[in-house]
Structures are given as structure tokens and as C-alpha cells.
């Protein structure tokens, strides 16, 4: 479970700030597949970053009573000058995994070849996304956070990666920032709606999309000058 304890967050900088969350107290289950919806797309990304711990809320606290992943595909902690293999080893050590097994699993998940021993900065661009997913799914989290739904296969992915993704998806929870209604209805059994500083959890996934569309049409275009940063 992820517990949001009176969480407030102000998004944006300088004059372009707005209150994204306003004293939200919510318990998000981590053993379900949750579709994250918002009237502003940017809010979804920021909310996922908040849950992951990449960003701290402006007020309140987020208590993680489960092993919560970083956003799937995130490789921000990789050092460019270090070989990919050693970067993967570093992630394994951070999360207390067996280093050799994790390296082997990631290597088998990709058709990466020699590039695995080369510095990360030399990795071909088309392998970065599958590498990010391989590293994320190599770690057995209780819940995986996604900035967006994955609806297509990557070129560099092997069957090992696909079966790893399937296994993790079936045994762990997920919180996915979705745009595709079909994906959400097929994959998710809960919907979390963010709107004007509030967060609402519902099991009516299909209707959640309709709600968000209505809310979007009702919400006037954001006049950023109207929002002031909290004192």
C-alpha cells in the first residue's frame, strides 16, 4: 500500500505554478492494476514521480508500505562513462539483489551483444528503452510505476524480456499513467483520477475516462497567472 498523508504538491516554477495536489489523504493498493487519469497530462507524470520518490511533495508525506519501483524505463542513475554491465550491477547492489544473476537476466533480455560491455554513452538509442524496462523488471518490486502504457514491442527485446514482463505483471501491482482507454479497460481494475488538487480512486475504469473527458471540457484553459505559489 502507498499511503498519501495530507500530501500537497505545487507543480511548475516561478510564475508558472499551480496546486497539483491539495492535502490529499489516500491509500493506493499496491496489489492491483491502477489506471492513472488526470485532466492535465503533465499531472500524471508528476504523480508517478511523487509515488516513485523521484520528487518530494511540497507538503505532507508519502509512506510506502511496499517495494515501489522507480518509473519503468528510468535510467537516470546510470553513469555515462561506466559500461552498461557495471551500471546494471550498481542497480542490483542498490536494491540488494544478486549481482551476477541480475546482470545475466538483463543481458538475456536484450539483443545487446558487445554494447553491454561498452560505456553507457555508446549504447544505441534503440536499446535504451528496452534496457530501461529490462532493468526495471529485473528487480522484483511489489508495484511497478509507468509513465505511459507499453503497447508495442521493442526491436531489441527478446522472449526472455517479454516473459519477464508478463511474469512481473501477473504477480505484482501496477500504476500506469494511461491515455489509451482500451488498454486501461483491459489491463486495469482500478482508476485513480486527479483533478484540481483532488485524487479519487474508483473501480469504474470505463466510466472514469468519460468522467475525465467531461472534466476536461468543463475545466477552462489553465490561466497560470491565477495560481500563486503557496507561502
Amino acid at each position, binding site marked *: *500500500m502507498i499511503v498519501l498523508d*495530507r500530501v500537497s504538491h505545487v507543480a511548475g516554477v516561478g510564475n508558472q505554478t499551480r496546486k497539483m495536489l491539495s*492535502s*490529499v*489523504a*489516500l*491509500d493506493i*493498493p499496491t*496489489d*492491483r492494476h491502477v489506471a492513472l487519469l488526470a485532466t492535465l497530462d503533465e499531472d500524471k507524470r508528476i504523480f508517478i514521480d511523487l509515488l*516513485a*520518490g*523521484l*520528487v*518530494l*511533495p*511540497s507538503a505532507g508525506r508519502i509512506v510506502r508500505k511496499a517495494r515501489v519501483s*522507480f518509473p519503468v524505463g*528510468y535510467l*537516470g*542513475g546510470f*553513469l555515462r*562513462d*561506466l*559500461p552498461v554491465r*557495471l551500471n546494471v550491477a*550498481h*542497480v542490483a*547492489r*542498490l*536494491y*540488494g539483489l544478486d549481482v551476477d544473476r541480475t546482470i545475466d537476466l538483463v543481458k538475456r533480455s536484450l539483443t545487446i551483444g558487445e554494447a553491454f560491455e561498452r*560505456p553507457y554513452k555508446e549504447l544505441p538509442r534503440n536499446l535504451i528503452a528496452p534496457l530501461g524496462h529490462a532493468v526495471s523488471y529485473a528487480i522484483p518490486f511489489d508495484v511497478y510505476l509507468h509513465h505511459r502504457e507499453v503497447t508495442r514491442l521493442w526491436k531489441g527485446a527478446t522472449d526472455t524480456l517479454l516473459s519477464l514482463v508478463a511474469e512481473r505483471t501477473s504477480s505484482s501491482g501496477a500504476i500506469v499513467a494511461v491515455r489509451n482507454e482500451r488498454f486501461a479497460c483491459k489491463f486495469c481494475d*482500478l482508476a485513480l*483520477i486527479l*483533478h484540481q488538487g*483532488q*485524487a*479519487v*480512486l*474508483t*473501480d*469504474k475504469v470505463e*466510466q472514469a475516462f*468519460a*468522467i475525465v473527458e*467531461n*472534466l476536461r471540457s468543463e475545466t477552462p484553459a489553465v490561466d497560470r497567472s491565477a495560481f500563486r505559489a503557496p507561502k
Partner: protein
Amino acid sequence: MDRSDKGKSGRQRSRQLAHFILSKGASSAVAGDIKSDARFRAAHRSAPKRGMRETLGRDIAAFAAALQAQGRVLLALLKREEQLRRYAPMEAILNLLEPVFLVLTLSFLWSFFGGRQVPPYGDSSVLFYATGFFPAYLFIHISRRMNGSVSASWRRFPIESRLDHIFVHIMLRIFDYTVLGILSFGGIYFLFSTQALPQDIVSVVLACLATTCLGFCFGVMNLVLTKLFWPWEYAYPLFCRVLMMCSGAFFIPDFLSYNVRYILSFNPELHVIILFRRGFYPDFPSLTLDTTYLACAAIIAAFIGFVLERITRRSSGR
């Protein structure tokens, strides 16, 4: 009912649902039957109340687990730094040799080209200046290099915190300077003076510990001020040079006039250098040295550093 009416009622129903959902309190709202949540609550309600001993045991276990996780992160970061040095050895060697070069070059310059043939104290000018520059540069490298060593929040994994990177930076500087100390003072011992072997290693270690605490505080201050006020990044090296001048690296504070000595005695780095030199010269003039003041300054500096890091954590991202 025609089609437009049907659409209208559909929109009304969606709107009603939205209002229904959003009206479940301004804060917590769980609409619908969330089975796992209800089961969790039911289990929690029926669970017997734990005794104080059980709660304490559970808290201790949680604290131990958190410490273990913290240690794991620090070890992983240190291991990564060690691997980075192996993959870029020239950069690592240059980083290590830079303080050696600086300390020894300045020592030579001051001893031979400053017209001072007689060492200010002891039997070797090189040793005298090296014992002044060594702790001063430890402070400067910890405080000034912290900005470059601590990665921005978007270049770390969520499990790594800024404080972890700060600790790793300090540990690496201590390691580098331990190697530097052995190399440079060992070299001075064999080439210039047998006084280069510390007589009182405890004084040397305490001086380094105090300068580490001061460096930590100023390093965190640099991290914060550089973000708020970018010219600080260029002003701080100037501050370091002034600090070097006023810290007794080039002179013996006890030989100055009372008024000047009194003003300079407020600089904790001055006490650090005197204490460090006492480790090499047992009879070094140390009337100005106030170990209580130095200890308090070091503890307060460490405290301020931790407080600054904590209160600026949100604004820095993490």
C-alpha cells in the same frame, strides 16, 4: 426520447457520477468496493493489540532493516566510485595528485623562493608548510568539490538520497587524503626531515575530523547557495584563499600581536592547523589553541550541515 436527449442524459449521468465520486470528502475518497483495501482494514481491525514489548521489538527490527538498507546504498555508491576510478584511472590519479602537487609546490615555493632559508619552526620549511596546507586543503576539497560530486535529483535512483552522495563524497576525500598524507609525509620523512613522522597521531586524527565536520557544513552551504545565488560558485574560491591566509598555514599564530591573535582565534581552521601541527611538533607554540572551541565549532557545523540539508531537501528535488 430522441438521440440528443439520450446523449444529454448520458452526460448528466457522467456528471452526476463525477460529482458523486468527488463529493466523497475533500481528502480521502474510495469509491466502490476495493476488495484488497477492505480486507486489509478488516484484518487490521481484528488483529489483537500488540504489547509494548512486541511494538518495541518491531520498531527495533524496522530500524535495523533501515540501517541495513542505508549501508547497502552507501556501499553500492562506494563500489561504483571505485569502478569508475578503474575505468578512468588517469582522472582518478590526477584528482589524487592535485592536492599532493599543490601542497608540495606551495611548500617549496614558500620555503625556497620566499627568501626564508630558516624554517619558521622545526628543521624543515617543507614540513612546516605541508602541515599547514594539508588540513586546509582537506577542508577546501570537501567543501568546494561537494557541488560537483553530488548528482542532481534526476540523475539518481529514488533509493539514493542526496545525503548518501554527500557521505560518499566525504568518505572518498578522507580516503584520498589518507593516501595523500602517507605519500607526502612519507616522502618528506625520507627526503627532508625525520620530524615528518607524527609523534601524536591522535591530534592529527582529531584535527582531520574537525576539519571534515567544518568542510561538511560549508559543502552543504555551497550546495544550497550555488542554487540560490549562482555568483557564489565564483565567490567561494576567493573565500577559501582568504581563509587560507588567516588560518596560520604560513605563520605561527602565537608569534602575532595579541589583538591580531584574538581576532584570528575565531577562525576554527586556525585551531585545526595548530592541533595538526602539534601532532608533528610536540612543543609547537599552542597558546592560541582552544580545543573546546574547536570541538564546539565542529559539532555545531555538523549540526548546521544536517539541518541545512534537511530543510533544503524538498526544494532541491530530493
